[in-house]
Structures are given as C-alpha cells and as structure tokens.
C-alpha cells in the first residue's frame, strides 16, 4: 500500500502510523496449520451437514458439499476474529481471481496465506 504524503508532516502519531506499515508476518507453525484444518473441516461438516470423515483435501466445495460464497465469507470472518487479522475482503477476492479455490485443500492453503500475509497477500503475485 502506498504511504500517503500527508503522513510525512512529523508528529508522534504520524510516526506511529509509519511504524505500523512495517510488515509483520505471522509465522505458520504446524500447530496453526492443524488448527486451520480442524476449523475448516468442522465448519463444512456442520454447515453442509456432511460427515467430517468424508471430507478431505480433494473434496470439491461446491460440487461435493454444495457450499457457497456466503460460507466462504463466514469462514473468513471466523479466521479474522480468531487471528485478529487485518485483511480486506476485496484483497482476498482479488487474490482469488488469480488463484481460484475449488477444493478444501486449496481453501486451507488460502486461509494460511491470509493468516501469514494479511493485506499484503497480493504482493505474493508481484
């Protein structure tokens, strides 16, 4: 994100704003990965009234589970709250245009990228 010129007029608050621009990248540990998997599996099992044991990385969200975009949105909100993420929905939408999500495995990978990079995830394509 470009830093606006009006932030460079030097007082404490502006310095703080500038400081917040320093990237803070979350580290994805094995625990985080497992936690995300567990949440995604449990979420779709409940929302789609599916047997959790029948869901795997290759499960197609729309064709196999009858999932929809509102479920995707709900899941994003769950992760935003859980990990206190700074991410705009349209950032995820823009990323998804180039990296469409069809399966549970792809969705988990995207959620991990969101947690790791937040609003900077579009920079991954640069």
């Amino acid at each position: 994100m470009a830093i606006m010129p009006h932030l460079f007029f030097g007082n404490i608050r502006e310095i703080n704003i500038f400081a917040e621009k320093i990237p803070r990248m979350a580290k994805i540990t094995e625990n985080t990965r497992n936690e995300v998997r567990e949440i995604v599996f449990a979420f779709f099992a409940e929302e789609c009234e599916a047997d959790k044991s029948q869901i795997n990385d290759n499960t197609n969200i729309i064709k196999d589970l009858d999932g929809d975009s509102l479920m995707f949105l709900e899941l994003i909100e769950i992760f935003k709250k859980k990990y206190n993420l700074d991410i705009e929905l349209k950032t995820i939408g823009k990323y998804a245009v180039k990296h469409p999500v069809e399966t549970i495995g792809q969705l988990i990978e995207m959620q991990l990228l969101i947690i790791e990079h937040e609003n900077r995830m579009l920079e991954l394509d640069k």
Partner: protein
Amino acid sequence: MIPHLAEDNIALIFPAFISDYRDDPSLEFPAFRDVFQALLIKAAGYVDKELLSFHPESNPMLQDELRNQYISYIYGCSCADILLKSGVKPGMIAGYSMGIYASLFTAGSISFETGLSFIQKAYAAIRKVLPHRQYGMCGVIGLSEKDIREVALHHSLNLMIVNRNSDYSFILAGESFHINVFLLKAREEGALHARSLGVTIPYHTNLLEEAAKDLSHAVFNADIQAPAIPIISVLNQDMIINGDRARNEVVNNIHTPFDWLVTQQQMFSSGIRTFTECGPSQALRKNSKFIPGAGKFVNWDTLVKRRVE
C-alpha cells in the same frame, strides 16, 4: 410504534423468489403437502392453470419470473399456515421484497386470492412499462457500498443499489448490459461473489414508477384490512398498522429500494429473538449470519416439530 410481542418473540419472514429447494417438508409433515396442494389448486384456478404442473424437482419453475413468484407466495402461505396452526404466535412479520404479499396474507390483511391478483397485476403493469427484457438484477458479496459505487462510477454504469443485505452483500438493478459489465468489473475489484439473479425486471428502481401507478388502481380498490400481526416495512422500517399503510407499501414496494439489514436489526431492537424463513431456500437464514445483533434463525419445520413434541 413498538408492537406488543408474542411470548416467543418470533418473526416470520417471507422471501420474494425461490432459488432452490431443500428437503421436501411433506415427508415429515404430510399436513404441509395438503395445505400446499390446496393453495396450488386454488391459485391454478384463479391465475394460471399451468401451476398444476409444478413439481419441486421435475418442474420447479425457477426460471419463470411470474410463476416463481406464485410458487414462492403459495409456499410461504403454506409454511405460515402450518406454523400458526401448530400454535406459533409470531410477534412480527416481514416480507423480503415481493414477500410482502405472503406477509399481508399471513397477517390476515388480504385474502389468498387478493395476494395472487397483486402478483399478477404488478407483473402485467411492469411488462406494459418495460416490454423488452433488457433489464436485470444482480447480487454482489465482498465489496462495500463505497466500492460498488466507485466501480459503477468508474465505468459509467447506470445501476441502482436496491437492497443492502448486510455490510458486504448488496443487490443492484438496471439495464442488463450495465449489469453484465458490473459483474465483470466487480469480480476484478475483488468481489467474492457476483452473479445475475436471473430476472429481467429491475425491481425496486424508479424505472417502475409508472408500473406502480398502474398497480395502485387495483390496490386502492382492493379489500385490505389492518394486519392482525404487526408487519414491518422493509422500505422505511415503520410498522404497517392499517389498510391504507398496507396499500402504500404494496405500491411503493415495486419502485422503492429497501434495506434488509436495517429491517432485521430493527426487528431485533423491537424484541424479536427468533427468525424463521417461510420458504424452501435458506438464503435469508444464511445472510443473517452477517447481520450483527440479528438474533437466531430456526427452520420453520423445526419450530413446528418443537410445538408438536
């Protein structure tokens, strides 16, 4: 005016159209099939005999704009009938868009036939004003209202936001060409979901002012009583407390944008804690998850089951 609420603080909400069918409620509630069939036969005799060929799987009539509305109306009235007979005492009712007709019938404000004739006459009036089907509506999820306005402005698209479902879910209407361009651009701009609603009428826009005037002749001559169950207006969140107010709502509903987000929040503020969607889809239930302080949703058949048990 805040209405007196029934014991359960339950609100019945009625969708406008049907997008899909979940499980057949007749399997658990044979009474539903009986009520639905009786109303279907009545409707077939009154407005369109082709309705008799309706079947949720083999002939769901989802693509037929008028018949879809008839079926949605019949379905909503049937659900409400079963709910009321089971002892549910709703504290409030709301009709999402063209769900107003089932709302009025359920509240005892109009007869079943009057509701059918409103649907029929509104459609005929609209087709008279807009005979060519070059209009449409679309839903977009994931963009804010500001983002949507910027996309429309940037690409010189003449569209109206006709409903806010939540802070990140909107319905737009306008010319098909503009809708199609918008859908493309909205996806590029980061919409998580953007799709046409498959209708050719720009409901809730000023393009239908003339049609509303035409409809008003029939509506103002119709027998409309004060609702026995309070109905909240989705247009301005006032309570519809008498026949004249109901008449205005039916006419204005055609050409005025509405705000579902605020409507549901207002219902909650008035004491409603449980919402039930009187229709075969779960679109309003799903949307409710994105409305802060919107209370809980319970399937209408679950409510009936609880009463029976």
